[in-house]
């Protein structure tokens, strides 16, 4: 990392998870002048967070995180060797259609112009808007895992994990290994791996190991006598913090006390930047989320911008790296470092791997339905955490005739708070779709505008005439005035 901001590059990559790391390493190896920007202090993304430090010492933590986590080191090492420039602690708050990036690092904002941009911003845990989910003591399961990877923190008071999806089980297992007082797992998928897993075995030839991994997580929980409930209609109880979680199981309501409640209903693409660029998006019915439309190289409907990894639709860490390399090959070809023939040739092994991953993903998508996150919200459930708007209040607005999602946003203030709709966008759209008895495509999504990360006015002011000083990009494409900072 240098201190003077770099103002130009041929290829800018946003995000240092498996997709961004693989893309940056390959592009730089092919001679493309590449900069990777990432908000985190160290490379690895969500899955391989803090991998370098955690690999140096072979202590309790590396044992808890397991062999799959350790595999991330190879990606980071190849990236470090590749010659790609690396800008950690750098949040990208804008990408324009002309390839101009707004970056904020150490309290200063600056602009960089890139000939091509690969967005590898990954995924976020799907918000789970059950009554009481804003109380202190309620976190995402991935959030607890992040604390463990980044700082070696583990829960020390009675913890309940409630949710659906492989990550919920993985975190349960990791917490158990770490000696956390895990008191129960509430499986909300309504279709446990046990019921569907074996039936799916023939389809999954070649995935024995992944499936066995899933089954062994369950076995480990049973062996440790951690009860696994099948539950639905969750609610958090507590006045100033979580005290208990209640849920329906076998037609009865059950209550478990908890100091820490970890929710998880899968992950969804983090698509703030593609949405702010007005890239074409498609509604993915299987994953119940919006994702940017892409071609087979990850190119979006915006000329200079591609997406790779979970940000282009959830497909897991291994697929993320392959998709990153495809986007890098296409970038190298467009920039003129390799021929089309070479691009296509080098893409073949990546595509073969991707096909395998896609089959497993289809199985996961059908097994782990995010039931709690997509059912009809209780009226008292907070839909928008920032502006504290409940589902009931939203329904009242809809009843008054506010049936356009952006109109609803203006009147209810949902999506106008600090998180800029990240936490409520999907929920508000769903409440609207359910009230109007229509589908998510018809409802659409919030109109987002840059900056996609809040930027202090002082930083914006300091930018001053920086934009004027930017020379044209290596590819000589200049701006659309509506995308000016």
């Amino acid at each position, binding site marked *: 990392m240098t201190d003077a901001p770099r103002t130009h590059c041929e290829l800018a990559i946003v995000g240092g998870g498996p997709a961004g790391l693989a893309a940056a390493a390959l592009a730089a190896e092919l001679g493309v002048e590449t900069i990777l920007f990432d908000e985190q202090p160290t490379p690895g993304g969500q899955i391989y967070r803090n991998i370098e430090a955690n690999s140096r010492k072979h202590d309790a933590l590396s044992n808890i995180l397991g062999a799959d986590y350790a595999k991330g080191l190879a990606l980071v090492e190849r990236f470090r060797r590749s010659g790609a420039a690396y800008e950690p602690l750098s*949040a990208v708050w804008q990408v324009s259609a002309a390839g101009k990036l707004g970056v904020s690092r150490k309290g200063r904002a600056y602009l960089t112009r890139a000939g091509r941009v690969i967005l590898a911003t990954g995924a976020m845990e799907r918000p789970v808007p059950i009554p009481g989910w804003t109380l202190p003591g309620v976190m995402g399961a991935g*959030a607890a895992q992040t604390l463990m990877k980044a700082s070696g923190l583990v829960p020390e008071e009675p913890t309940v994990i409630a949710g659906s999806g492989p990550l919920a089980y993985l975190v349960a297992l990791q917490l158990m290994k770490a000696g956390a007082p895990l008191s129960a797992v509430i499986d909300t998928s309504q279709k446990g791996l046990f019921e569907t897993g074996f039936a799916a075995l023939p389809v999954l030839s070649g995935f024995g190991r992944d499936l066995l991994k899933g089954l062994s997580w369950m076995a480990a929980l049973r062996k440790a006598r951690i009860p696994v409930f099948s539950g639905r209609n969750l609610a958090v109880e507590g006045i100033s913090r979580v005290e208990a979680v209640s849920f329906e199981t076998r037609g009865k309501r059950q209550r478990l006390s908890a100091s820490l409640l970890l929710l998880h209903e899968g992950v969804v693409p983090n698509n703030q930047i593609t949405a702010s660029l007005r890239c074409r998006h498609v509604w993915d019915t299987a994953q119940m989320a919006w994702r940017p439309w892409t071609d087979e190289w990850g190119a979006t409907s915006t000329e200079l911008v591609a997406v790779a990894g979970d940000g282009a639709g959830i497909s897991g860490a291994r697929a993320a790296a392959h998709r990153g390399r495809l986007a890098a090959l296409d970038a190298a070809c467009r920039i003129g470092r390799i021929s089309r023939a070479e691009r296509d040739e080098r893409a073949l092994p990546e595509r073969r791997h991707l096909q395998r991953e896609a089959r497993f993903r289809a199985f996961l998508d059908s097994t782990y339905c995010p039931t709690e996150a997509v059912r009809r919200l209780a009226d008292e459930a907070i839909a928008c955490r920032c502006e504290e708007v409940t589902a009931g209040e939203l329904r009242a607005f809809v009843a008054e005739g506010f049936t356009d999602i952006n109109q609803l946003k203006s009147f209810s203030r949902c999506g106008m708070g600090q998180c800029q709709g990240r936490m409520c966008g999907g929920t508000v759209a769903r409440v609207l779709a359910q009230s109007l008895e229509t589908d998510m495509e018809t409802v659409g999504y919030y109109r987002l505008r840059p900056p996609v990360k809040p930027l*202090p006015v002082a930083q914006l002011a300091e930018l001053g005439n920086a934009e004027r000083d930017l020379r044209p990009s290596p590819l000589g494409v200049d701006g659309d005035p509506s995308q000016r900072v």
Partner: protein
Amino acid sequence: MFRRLRTDDLTTTIFFDGRPLRCRPGDSVAAALLAAGIERFRTTPVSGTDRMPHCMIGNCFDCLVEIDGQADQQACLVPVREGSQVRSQLGTGRFDAA
């Protein structure tokens, strides 16, 4: 609520509402506060209720605190710096508190 797997590497000190906290270089401010048992990072501007980090990866903004006079900082994304003065953010926070 959380304990540390290791406590032999807490060589940095930050302050939360004036109280010194020992933490590990490389911790996020949010991890350092949670390790010290702090649950109220901020109160909401609308109803004044307490909030604690929810996502830990920069999406929910429930971890907003004031760091060295700058309001609205995402504690889960900012690494600890020796001697930093962190304050809980009440409501909308103080504007240019420095």
